[in-house]
């Protein structure tokens, strides 16, 4: 693992998540989202990102977390990720900070469920007294069976 690997951390409800910074293209305010009929339920819709149409994933639905904790305010953001030359956005409640990976204790995903499918989790990190879920972003848009749709 590279020495100076960094994470962007964000919040969904009370949970804190981290994602590799090199996969993050940009972080934008929520633009108008166009609903796509008959799309998978975890896709909120599509947005216009400087002329490209990209999908926005609702992480709560994707991770099977309760919908009712959804916050609607002006710290909501879309984090645009790039995986395999393919861009997509994830909707988050708020973006927190940038962390050095070596600053935290990374542990393998727990065998006991934390309420999120283990295939989305790379590890659990400990920063000070907080727990942070380090995401495996390449699986966010792949299908249930773990087969890449990209």
């Amino acid at each position, binding site marked *: 693992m590279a020495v100076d690997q960094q994470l962007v951390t964000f919040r969904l409800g009370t949970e804190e998540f981290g994602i590799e910074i090199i996969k993050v293209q940009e972080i934008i305010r929520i*633009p*108008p989202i*166009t*609903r*796509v*009929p*008959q*799309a998978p339920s975890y*896709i909120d*819709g*599509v*947005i*216009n990102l*400087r*002329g*490209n*149409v*990209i*999908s926005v994933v609702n992480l709560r639905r994707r991770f099977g977390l309760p919908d009712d904790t959804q916050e609607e305010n002006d710290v909501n953001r879309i984090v645009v990720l790039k995986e395999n030359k*393919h*861009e*997509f956005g994830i909707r988050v409640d708020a973006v927190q900070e940038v962390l050095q990976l070596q600053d935290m204790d990374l542990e393998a995903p727990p065998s006991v469920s934390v309420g999120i499918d283990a295939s989305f989790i790379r590890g659990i990190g400990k920063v000070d007294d907080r727990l942070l879920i380090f995401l495996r972003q390449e699986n966010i*848009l792949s299908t249930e069976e773990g087969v890449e*749709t*990209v």
Partner: protein
Amino acid sequence: MSLDKDPGNMGMPDVEEFLEFYLLDSQEQIERLGASILDLERDSENIGLINELFRSAHSLKGASGTMGFTAIVEVTHAAEDLLDKVRQGKLTVTHEIIDVLLEVTDVVKDMLAQVEAQKPVRHDAEDLVKRICRLAKGVITETTDIQTMSEDPDPEPAPRVEFALDENAIMDLREVTLFGQAIYQLTVILDEQALMKTVRAVMVIQRLQDLGKVLAISPSIENMELMEEEEISNDRFYLLLATDEREEEILSEIYMVSDVIDIHVSIFDSSEISQLIGIEPLEQPLAEKLSTEMDSSKETARGVSHEASTETEAYSKFLRDNVQPPSGGDGGGGKSDQVHTIRVDTDRMDSLINMVGEMVITRARLVKIGDDLRGKFPMDALVNNLNETNIYLGRLMNDLQESAMRLRMVPVGTVFSRYPRLVRDFCRKTGKKIDLELHGEETEMDKTVIEQIGDPLTHLIRNCVDHGIEDPGTRLAAGKSEIGKIILKAYHEGNHIAIVISDDGDGLDLQKIMQKALTAGLIGENEDLSEREIANLIFLPGFSTADQITDISGRGVGMDVVKRALSGLGGTVDIRTKAGEGTVFTIKLPLTLAIIQALLVGVCGEIYAVPLSSVQETLRVQNEDVRTVGGIKMAKLRGNTLPLLSLKSQFGLPEDDEKETVFVVVVGVMDRLIGLMVDELKGQQEIVLKTLGDDLGSLPGISGATILGDGKVTLILDVGTLMQDVLTY
């Protein structure tokens, strides 16, 4: 036979770059060759054409040799030999020769495809090469007074001459060998009585400079002067000339110099070249040397790999210095209709077009802001100024967009060119006589359309030759010319391109079509159809009138495939036929796929775009006129029932049956129409097509997206799949 170097092994990036040039150029060359061969069949006496063919084969061979694809070299060499015989009048053009030459183009095309696929070139062409040689041996009269410049097995051996080559000459020699230029050894014999023989020699060299490169002369000019001074009798001198010109050109040029009484021309022995420059031009090709690095079985390889890098440099220098790729060395006498072109990666082009599309959208936003400002400050000069500038910008944008779109335009002739061959082969196989006329080959269409139009067109033309045109006997009996005629033509028509395929054959058997359609249950017993409607039945799925399956029009696949392919491109096809007089297929295709006209519709506050090409009309229907039959809503449209599809239920939106009237957008083709129920019509607009991204895959009813003036994404309806949903009930 030979197993060539696997191009995938070529480690050096430079070589890959050459490979790309080589492939592009050779593929063009082979296409041109194919077309010229067909021309030659019609015009077998045309010496210019034969020369052109010879040159094409020659440069193809040279380039392939340089890259190390010996399998291609073998085949093209044989073809070149054969053409040379024809060129010299030793052979006359027969159908057999044409057949074999066409086969060569097929084989080479296959080989090039293998090269492109990074597979080793494995092609069993030995049999073909043998057949060509046999044909080439069938020479009418063996003439020996002029030495041939081809690599005949039995040319009169050229006198072995020692050329003193300086370093520059060796470099030159190496370069021309690499580019596959022919090197001739010329023996110029002067009148023994002539004075100032050295001056004659210089004059000869000067003249030859226009044709190619004089690599060496023996004896040297200095020595000749010396000999003249000392009055040593010498009536001849020898030259090495690298050129793409024909032997006749060389001869006539030299004969312009007075006192020249005889000239012998022969191909310079390649083994000598290898001795002189340290490489073997064909047997030990560049590509192989570059990749073999140190082949343990070849002790010479160590010395050679250094050479190779200088060659690579020379080669890239050549590429830099010449706009035309290397084997296009048929320059001078080449075609006059060559256009100045550059090759650009399609990705780069597409990103440019994308950006232009963005600018169009952004300008629409500017216009909206301008309008809003005008509403706020009606008399403000600054606002007026902004709006005027917007209008000017709009004009510029239109031009820019058009220019960008033109970059993707390719003449339709690139597709048309394959059909003469198709028709010819068919005629040879069946004994039918058919003349294929092409018109409007220069008509330009979007590259994507061009790429996908080939198969449907092939299908239609096969249908014409197979079912349309009758055999000569039947034609004569019907009082028609023995030779059938198929016309393939393309032209602009408004915002569309029309492609028309017409034949003067027997026309469609409408009676039979009706029968078929009835048995297949495609039409009802008492339906009253016009001739045109009956003819168009053949485009329905599950329809095929061919009683016999031939390998010409294929088996099973019907005209519905053609129709589907064309609809996929946003096009339509129509058919008209007259018994005994022929059939006309008219295809209409959009100019471009990137921008389309669309009708925007509103459903529960959401906006969708319907491609205008599939919209027939819009209606306003009273809710009470909508009936439900077997679970499907129906409305009356001029006496016919029109199945309706509610976009709300389709897209999971709340239904409200309270409305008194609904808007219905009638979409579809001919007698297969459905109505889309929407809340409002928002008008017509040009939209730029965008893909929805792979993660959404193919969603039923949605074909893509676009971005409207306000920056919001709007989905484009896929009328085809929506119709299937309704009509399969």
